[in-house]
């Protein structure tokens, strides 16, 4: 089976953009809710855990070159647990795609559309994603390469102008309540790095899979940088206390931006428009992982038929939560599932020496 190969820089960008595509807009809020103004430390800790996760996936993948996670799971954990884990993974990424879709649909509906039905926004996104996913991972990787230089300068300029308004003194005092808030913040601080989960599937598709770890760590570093700047900026502008009340703090952050001479107003519309690119990519990646993984579980040669099977599933899962609170619950559930999954793989990778995997 001829597979599309992707370059390591593409993996870096995919990891970064998938992570920020899903959780960025709400990130400062829920990190601050858990960790207060020390959330940036939690983000650092979360990134460290994510680094550990990257190491785990990379070292497991090294044992099974050219195999994706659903292919090596049975060998790694035994047949029944492996199958169970496969189903779990697929369900996880289906929900991840659904959450990405729903979350961004909600944001768009709130800020851009008043009367346009949510369904329309979501189906439009989803069909576009299906169009991209059908082309395979290579196209997604290239899209990441196209979108990255569009999004990052925009983000950078925003943050640059924001610096004049940020009062970094709001970050003080550091750790006045000890380590406890920081520790509480590790869960949200870690789950915002979820994007690297795609490594499980994509590592074997790398042109040079020995680069997997470095590439993914690069992606996490980019993500971390973006998160840190944003979080400290948000605390600096709103203060931790105010921040905890905001549902979409990044949007509010951009709204708070005072551009010199007020060239444009309501910059958040601009931000959201540009952010459609990132969110779209994150959605498409999760969508792809599910289709690709499912096709491998079923032993199909081509994954593209799966796209049409997965599409309604993602849509249903996305439309199911009745209100904003349930969407947040879905996000927490995903986070929990992701933490459990990472724990499993990190432990298993740690035990690789003691308990070598059966050759598949």
């Amino acid at each position, binding site marked *: 089976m001829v597979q599309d190969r992707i370059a390591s820089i593409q993996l870096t960008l995919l990891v970064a953009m998938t992570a920020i595509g899903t959780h960025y807009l709400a990130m400062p809020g829920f990190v601050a809710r858990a960790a207060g103004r020390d959330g940036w430390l939690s983000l650092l800790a979360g990134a460290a855990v994510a680094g550990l996760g990257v190491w785990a996936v990379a070292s497991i993948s090294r044992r099974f070159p050219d195999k994706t996670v659903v292919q090596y799971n049975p060998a790694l954990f035994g047949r029944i647990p492996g199958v169970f884990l496969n189903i779990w993974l697929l369900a996880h990424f289906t929900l991840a795609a659904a959450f990405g879709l729903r979350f961004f649909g909600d944001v768009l509906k709130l800020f851009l559309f008043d009367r346009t039905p949510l369904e329309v926004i979501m189906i439009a996104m989803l069909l576009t994603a299906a169009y991209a996913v059908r082309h395979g991972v290579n*196209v997604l990787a290239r899209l990441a390469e196209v979108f990255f230089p569009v999004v990052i300068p925009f983000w950078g300029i925003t943050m640059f102008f924001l610096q004049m308004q940020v009062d970094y003194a709001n970050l003080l005092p550091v750790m006045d309540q000890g380590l406890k808030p920081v520790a509480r913040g590790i869960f949200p601080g870690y789950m915002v790095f979820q994007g690297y989960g795609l490594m499980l599937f994509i590592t074997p598709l790398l042109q040079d899979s020995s680069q997997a770890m470095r590439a993914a760590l690069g992606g996490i570093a980019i993500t971390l940088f973006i998160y840190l700047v944003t979080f400290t900026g948000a605390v600096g502008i709103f203060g931790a206390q105010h921040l905890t009340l905001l549902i979409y703090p990044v949007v509010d952050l951009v709204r708070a931006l005072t551009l010199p001479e007020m060239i444009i107003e309501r910059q958040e519309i601009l931000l959201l428009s540009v952010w459609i690119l990132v969110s779209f990519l994150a959605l498409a990646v999760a969508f792809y992982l599910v289709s690709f993984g499912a096709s491998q579980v079923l032993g199909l040669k081509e994954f593209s038929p799966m796209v049409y099977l997965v599409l309604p599933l993602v849509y249903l899962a996305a439309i199911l939560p009745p209100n904003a609170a349930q969407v947040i619950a879905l996000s927490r559930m995903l986070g929990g599932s992701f933490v459990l999954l990472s724990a499993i793989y990190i432990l298993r990778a740690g035990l690789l020496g003691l308990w070598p995997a059966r050759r598949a």
Partner: protein
Amino acid sequence: MSSRRVPKKPLPLRPADPGGQTKKEEPPPVLTRDLARNLEILKQALAESSDVVFREFAVGSRYLPAAVVFVDGLVDKQMLDRDLLEALMLELALVERAGAGCLEPEAAMACLKQRAVTAGEVRESRDLEDLITFILSGDTAFLVQGAGYALVVNTRGWKMRGLEEPVNEPTIRGPKEGFSETVRVNTALVRRLVRDPRLKIEGMRLGRRSRTDCAVAFIEGVVNPDLVAEVRRRLATIDIDFIMETGDIEQMLEDSVLSPFPQMQHTERPDKAAAALMEGRVAILVDGTPFALLAPATFSQFFQSPEDYYQRWELASFLRLLRVFASYVATFTPAIYVALVSYHPGLLPTPLALSIAASREGMPLPIMLEALAMEFFFEVFREAGTRLPRAVGQTVGIVGGLIIGQAAVMARLVSPATVIVVALTAMASFVIPAYDMAIAFRLLRFPLLFAAGILGLFGVMLGFIIINIHMVALNTFGTVYLSTFVPYQPRAWKDLLIRGPARTLRHRPEMLHPQDEVRQASRKESGW
């Protein structure tokens, strides 16, 4: 102009000889030794063609019957007279006097070819079908009684356009010679710029009936052999009655038919073609058109002009950035305008929003329809301007653009802001050097406008995403269309959006996988 000749190589890509199969009366495939019979067959094949001339005469002291067959108008009469008829009828006597007794019917042809025919380029042809093709291409067939084959003398020479400055690709600085309609002249123009012996110009014929001469040019040792093989393979799959222009071939060779984007580049400029060859691309030249095809073509190429390399790099870089920016303006401005005005007026600065609102007071059409209509009529004016004779075309522009536009605004049928946006878009789309790419952008404007009218900025972004998905998925001859931007090839970026200083452009584009990657020694190596 003796270099104008049909390529010597047998047609490698056309195993089955074109033509002939459909005729009811199957002529014998080869010539006989009998002149009269040969002539009869030829006359039969070329019957009712008033422009085919059969001239029979006798050769030498033994009055060996001979004949020449040619097409009037395609041959250089002077050359025919001097190098063939005069030589055979008058100067042969001198040869004979020198003691060569070679006018035995069996050996006559070989002898004549060696000693009498003074034309530069001759070849033997035994195949009747071939012979007819040669005659119809402007060669002269020379037949002698007793020889089982004919001598094909290259006497091609017809009235043709001189070398003029390329009309569609003018530059301020750079060579002023453009390709013309004769493929041989064109290959010569390329050859003049590239004297590398490894510049290969493969010939072939395309078109079952038109039998058009084509040439595939590439530089061996530079070009990726797989690319040449693929070009050959695709060309070989063309089985059509007639080829008129490189545009015909382009559409049959391209990877994606549904794409609005051109996947091969065409040029009238020999310098551009030569530069492309040097990069490791393949050029396809076709007789009858001054446009050479360059394959593969990537997106960024359409924003480049050969002039970029002739001018200093700062200016060239600025112009490139300008073109890229203009192309975005041309594609997205109307859509963004519609989205902002009818969905997100909050994004506009307050004074602007108010002045647009004031100017739109009482307008009959919603903004999307207004913009669509304006864009549509702009295209109408543009098309009218191109199709009409040049003198009238300008009038159309003035009437269409100025008078109607002005009147429409005065009559409060359209808002001035829309007119400005449409006019800006139009001007911006003219900045793109490649006409076919400019058209692609103009086409994309309409769906984008539509999307903006339905979903506002979200629609525009979805459109942007879809266009990008299509572009990154598009491959042309195995090269990613967005190369070298995507996948990232940072080494090539100094000649992408900007054009780096000449000394820094040391490598050929990686995306083409050239065999010889380095095109310039580094400063240090060159002893600067």
